[in-house]
């Protein structure tokens, strides 16, 4: 636990370093309201999906299909809109569809006992494939401005983008669920020792199923945000986003083996990833460098605990 706290302290420290470096190297425009608005927009979907994915990974599972659910929900929005449905009906339908995608993952994993890695690689292809089947390679872009404004304008009087408000509200809910409820304690227990959790009467399968349903539903919400942000419903929206989300969650100090991590750390991880990317963009760094940085951050975040453990044991060994 102490190790974990140290990791989060390090993250906050890194965040401050990035913010100060950004502020100095861009002559103060990094922390300006306008730039923070774009930074917020840029990390909106990642922040949203990272919330349920944290719970999934803490429970010792993984969901790689989230970005495909995002794409499928975007494609569904376009398809239903073309079919003449009103958006008030489309949006709840899409969230339900996302929850169903998550339930399908969860049922295969809990009822058949299949590894979540294999299942969600399969549904990554399946859901993206369904998105292509639904919408093909066309784009639907004629959404009313009153809706797309949610993805492109800040909350009046502030510089806060709407997706961040949404993510903040959900973050509070997920934070309470993970850190202040028996449900959350069960999630940690499952991740730490699934067998032990089952013998202490925790309904392991039901809780895991719930987590996958939540991941699907929130990924669909992220799909809505994505669609309105770019005013474009496409089947290939958010391709590869699962990597960025997993990177952010692990960077936030969640153990890929389950049982460890906090939502606060993950939010810091999302901010750090987004902040670094934003800073690099401000300095006209090419997108390929961004890709390398994301990958390196992921590697560093998983190697760091292992390295500190090794250094720690060395220090213990030498009196």
């Amino acid at each position, binding site marked *: 636990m102490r190790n974990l706290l140290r990791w989060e302290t390090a993250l906050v420290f890194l965040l401050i370093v990035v913010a100060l470096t950004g502020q100095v190297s861009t002559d103060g425009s990094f922390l300006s309201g306008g730039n923070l608005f774009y930074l917020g927009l840029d990390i909106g979907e990642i922040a949203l999906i990272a919330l349920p994915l944290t719970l999934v990974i803490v429970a010792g599972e*993984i969901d790689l299909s989230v970005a495909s659910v995002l794409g499928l929900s975007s494609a569904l929005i376009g398809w239903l809109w073309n079919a003449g449905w009103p958006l008030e009906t489309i949006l709840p339908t899409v969230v339900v569809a996302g929850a169903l995608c998550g339930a399908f993952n969860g049922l295969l994993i809990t009822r058949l006992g299949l590894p979540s890695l294999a299942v969600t690689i399969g549904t990554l292809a399946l859901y993206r494939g369904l998105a292509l*089947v639904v919408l093909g390679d066309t784009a639907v872009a004629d959404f009313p401005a009153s809706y797309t404004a949610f993805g492109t304008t800040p909350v009046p009087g502030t510089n806060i983008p709407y997706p961040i408000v949404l993510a903040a509200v959900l973050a509070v809910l997920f934070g309470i669920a993970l850190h202040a409820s028996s449900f959350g304690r069960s999630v940690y227990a499952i991740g730490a020792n699934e067998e032990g959790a089952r013998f202490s009467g925790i309904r392991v399968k039901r809780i895991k199923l719930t987590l996958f349903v939540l991941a699907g539903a929130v990924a669909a919400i992220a799909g809505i945000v994505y669609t309105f942000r770019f005013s474009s419903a496409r089947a290939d929206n958010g391709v590869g986003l699962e990597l960025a989300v997993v990177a952010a969650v692990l960077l936030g100090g969640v153990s890929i083996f389950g049982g460890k991590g906090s939502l606060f750390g993950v939010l810091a991880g999302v901010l750090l990833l987004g902040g670094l990317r934003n800073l690099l963009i401000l300095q006209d760094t090419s997108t390929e460098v961004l890709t390398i940085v994301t990958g390196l951050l992921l590697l560093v975040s998983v190697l760091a605990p292992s390295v500190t453990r090794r250094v720690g044991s060395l220090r213990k060994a030498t009196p």
Partner: protein
Amino acid sequence: MTAQLDTATAPPSARRTAARRLSTRVGRVRELGIVVALALVVIPTAIVNPRFIQAQSLRDLLLNASIVALLAVGQTLVVVTRNVDLSVGSVLGLSAFLTAQQFADHPGTPLLAGIGLGVAIGLACGLLNGLLVALGNVPSLVVTLGTLYVFRGIDYALAQGRQVNAANLPDALLDLGSSRVLGIPVLVLITVVVIAVAAVYLRSYRSGRELYAIGSNPEAATLAGIPVARRTLTTFVLSGLIAGLAGALWVARYGTVDAAAGTGLELQVVAAVVVGGVAIFGGSGTVAGAALGALLLGTITSCLVVLQIPAFWQQAIAGALLLSAITVDRLLALRLAKALRTSEGTSHA
């Protein structure tokens, strides 16, 4: 009731052989299943369009599947040890671009030296993956997810938007991609040789068998004195090396290469391996099965084209196929476990 009586009266050794028979059958059923699936896909397509089974189109079929099959061989070595290498698509891309650039910038490069460069690049990438996984004690899923980004990023950074065209490549290389020996494309022959070598290694060599032991139970393998870290490192090096070779062959096959070559290929490869009966949690599976899995996925793609089904369906079908493969595997494994339990129970009695 009768089953119970049967169990009680049958001599324990007979029950054990029965269980063993079932386990061999389960092993075989998978490769047979893929062959049946292939037939189910090919025959209706051939009826609709007889040209589908002409020599030329069969050659194309094998040619299209061969690069994924190659990668699937390397992936099998890794997956058997309960790891996964998601970076193969990026390694292929990096190797393909650098190989193509070498040939284009230095027209005098001997064919084998150029291909050797691709293989060496793959080997270096694989070595990095292997060192991180084996020494860093970090799950391979995360490591190779990270290097997937890093290698692809390096690829884009080096390419800077350039593209190498077939016109700048030596004929010897392009011939390699199109020439045939006894009617069989050279690329397919290379793939078959790699499959055969890997199959013999996994089947008959001590270190090959040890890979299965590691995948079945890493702790037990360590206790049995198997150098787990070194074997794991080797599998990643081999996977990288094969991806590097596949990159060089990609250039020979397609002629035009930019930094995006092989993007997303890792999913096809993992799908092929899993469909081919390699358990994602290690310990079982063959390279032949994985290669057949690659052939099946490639064939389905071609059939969709011939049957004029929109290509959009392809990805959904690949995903559904992967899911049904792991589901069937799981159900078979459950049956097998039950059968083994029964036989064990009687042998104790």
